[in-house]
């Protein structure tokens, strides 16, 4: 039996995380260098909050929710810089077949109200997601939890419906944070996290204070954190520069220079797997034509999109969804270039050069309107007329996304390669964006899950990336970097590619150097 959270992996992972942090912050500012100091009070601003803000981890739906939940609760595992699951409330996770998992809990952990953490709390926290009435955002993921039973005072056995080697990473997602056994009323928060809720006003603010009995000795460092949201980007950056908040996420690429020009603030670039993609549906005769699809891929001006839309804060992508930061990334697929001649040849061969097709884009799909314009320009040069239909962000996902032959989608970094593929590419997936059906891809996906050898799994994932690159009905021009702005006195952080604010989990790492 192998403990997948073993210290060896953890140490390497941690070092990897630190190295990435140093590389991003050349001067070492904001990185995990120096001796952390206790104390200090900060205010941070995320992008949106509303009356839907919640204290229930299962219902979290915005960055603001995820940050709040990571401050108040702890998970069985925690992400490192490479999105691997490291020990959290579980100090050991053992499996032989990736189906039956034996999980041992850390000793001496207490909830904020003083109640000790028990196996029953964990079983309840995991299985509650399967109940439709719980309204969990990860119900489809939790449906693979076949059963969980107590195996000792601090041990439990979790049985899955099928093999899944990524369980340690999945359990680090904020939705699976551990709550009290039987808790259904989330008007108050009672977790085991680094901070205790002091004030929670949905849509206005969350104030948390240091948990003196946190299970990681010496942590957290800050006395108090106030979390607010400033939806307007200019206001958010202004609030940072005027000292009203000490950290913000989603800094616009255009504001980076302005922030970096100060001596007091800086921006952390977090390369991530976030992308905006052109979706070509298989249920329309035009966009199902392989020549047409390939032509659209050859019409992507990836260099221009990276340079002009994202000011260089992006990584060129290759029409498949696994980014270079993913350990399973396949670097051996040749990069598809911008090749209008080839596109024209393909379109002529398909006989579709004369079609007039609308492409739907909305501001909510990050950069999609400009990507559409770039595409339209290149298409016009070879005689293909595309209309870009700019539609409102409000209701875009429900009414337009995947509902027309050509729409833009926008997908966040997912914690595991498997999640990305099974959510958006498996033929029976609910959000199979292009509506494709590729039996071999589906077979490979299942094969990867039941493979215990990580190297072999990486090989399978590599092949799946090639399949999507060649046959997938989507064009992905670039992976977009996340940009966090912060006060230089705020230290101890390194990027976790899942999202801004260290994959939303900065609170127990950050310290104030004043």
């Amino acid at each position, binding site marked *: 039996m192998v403990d997948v959270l073993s210290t060896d992996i953890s140490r390497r992972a941690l070092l990897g995380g630190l190295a990435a942090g140093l590389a991003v912050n050349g001067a070492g500012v904001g990185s995990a260098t120096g001796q952390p100091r206790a104390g200090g009070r900060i*205010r941070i*601003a995320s992008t949106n909050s*509303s*009356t*839907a803000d919640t204290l229930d981890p299962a219902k979290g*739906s915005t960055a603001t929710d995820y940050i709040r939940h990571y401050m108040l609760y702890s998970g069985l595992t925690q992400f490192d810089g490479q999105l691997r699951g490291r020990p959290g409330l579980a100090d050991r996770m053992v499996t032989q077949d990736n189906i039956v998992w034996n999980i041992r809990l850390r000793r001496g952990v207490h909830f904020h109200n003083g109640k000790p953490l028990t196996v029953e709390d964990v079983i309840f926290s995991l299985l509650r997601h399967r109940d*439709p*009435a719980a*309204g969990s*955002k990860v*119900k*489809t993921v939790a449906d693979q939890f076949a059963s969980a039973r107590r195996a000792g005072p601090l041990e439990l056995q979790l049985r899955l419906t099928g093999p899944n080697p990524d369980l340690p990473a999945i359990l680090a997602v904020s939705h699976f944070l551990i709550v009290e056994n039987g808790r259904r009323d989330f008007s108050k928060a009672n977790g085991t996290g680094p901070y205790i809720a002091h004030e929670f*006003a*949905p*849509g*206005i*603010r969350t104030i948390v204070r240091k948990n003196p009995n946190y299970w990681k000795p010496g942590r957290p460092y800050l006395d108090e954190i106030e979390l*607010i*949201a*400033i*939806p*307007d980007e*200019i*206001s958010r950056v*202004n*609030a940072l*520069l*005027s*000292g*009203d*908040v000490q950290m913000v996420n989603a800094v616009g690429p255009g504001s980076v220079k302005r922030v970096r020009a100060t001596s007091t603030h800086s921006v952390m670039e977090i390369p991530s797997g976030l992308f905006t993609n052109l979706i070509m549906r298989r249920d329309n005769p035009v966009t199902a034509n392989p020549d047409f699809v390939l032509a659209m891929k050859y019409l992507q001006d990836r260099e221009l999109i990276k340079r002009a839309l994202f000011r260089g804060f992006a990584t060129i992508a290759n029409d498949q969804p696994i980014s270079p930061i993913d350990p399973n990334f396949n670097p051996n697929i040749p990069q598809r270039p911008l090749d209008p001649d080839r596109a024209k040849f393909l379109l002529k061969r398909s006989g579709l050069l004369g079609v007039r097709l609308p492409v739907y884009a909305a501001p909510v799909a990050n950069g999609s309107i400009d990507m559409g314009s770039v595409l339209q320009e290149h298409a016009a040069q070879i005689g293909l007329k595309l209309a870009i239909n700019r539609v409102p962000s*409000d*209701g875009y*996902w*429900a*009414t337009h*996304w995947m509902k027309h032959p050509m729409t833009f989608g926008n997908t966040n970094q997912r914690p595991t390669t498997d999640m990305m593929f099974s*959510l958006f590419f498996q033929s029976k997936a*609910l*959000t199979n964006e292009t509506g494709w059906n590729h039996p071999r891809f589906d077979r490979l996906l299942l094969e990867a899950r039941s493979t215990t050898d990580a190297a072999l799994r990486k090989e399978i994932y590599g092949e799946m990336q090639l399949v999507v690159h060649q046959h997938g009905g989507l064009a992905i021009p670039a992976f977009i970097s996340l940009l966090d702005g912060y006060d230089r006195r705020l230290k101890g952080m390194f990027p976790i590619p899942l999202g801004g604010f260290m994959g939303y989990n900065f609170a127990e790492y950050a310290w104030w150097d004043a």
Partner: protein
Amino acid sequence: MSAASTPSLWRGAGRLIGKRIGLALVTLLLVSAVIFTISGLLPGDAAQEVLGQGATPEQVAALRHEMGLDRPAPVRYAEWLGSIVAGDPGQSLVANKPVADIISERLPNTLTLAALAALVSVPFAFLIGIASAVSRGRKLDRGINVLTLSMVALPEFLVATIAVLIFAVELLWLPSITIVPKDPTFAQFARAYAMPVMVLAVGVVAQLGRMIRAAIIAELDRPYVEMARLKGVGPQRLVFRHVLPNAIGPIVNAMALSLSNLFGGAIIVETIFNYPGLASLMVNAVTSRDMPLLQACAMIFCATYLLLVLIADTVAILANPRLRQV
């Protein structure tokens, strides 16, 4: 006016005001119906918005049933209408809290901001309006005209952004976002509100000032002013004793419009200063399709507007003997 005719005059005014209140209630009813219908046309509903992109159809259907959204629209409207008449705005679909609780958290914020802005802008507007009317055609008047016209033309978001860049980012005098601590000292309170109030006041002062000027000038051309002048009434006494009371009708009307603008049009200021007021709450309710919350916000905005107009009309009626007799 003679003592004998006074009661009948008041009765006439009372009847007129009563009619206005009746009309206001009808307007509120129509507005609620229109909002209910229009928001029903928006794509998606609260259940879809709450569950997000990855929800299964079964999950959406279950939540829809729980929220009562699977019943026909007229039934839902009638039910809402029944409870609002009884004084209960219902339960928020998204926040799982009574709408009244959510509103009671935000309404005082909006009222504070609007009241402060009114308090600052009304005296300034009078000052500017009177000064430029009295010096009509002279340098002062022309100067004020150019100033107020450009203030009216400047969009609020521009004024706000420039103010933030100067006072918050460069000079570091004032906060760029409005966060009022729980029990603020006067200094904290003033610092927090200084910029949003200033930005809101810019537009109101200019607009109201111009209308006051126009109203006073209209009176200054009347024969009774000429007569007063000939009788040797000084300029100050002329404006404050003779002209202002006669011009008060149109001025109060203009004030009502400007103030309702302050109350409802604060959305840009709320966005830029991240101020948790009613306008941003209403935008929130639209995007999350939270119908009861949306309706409640709309009713408050509409009722405030109608109330201000009603007050203006009442003042105009009471100030004008001819209207009183209708």
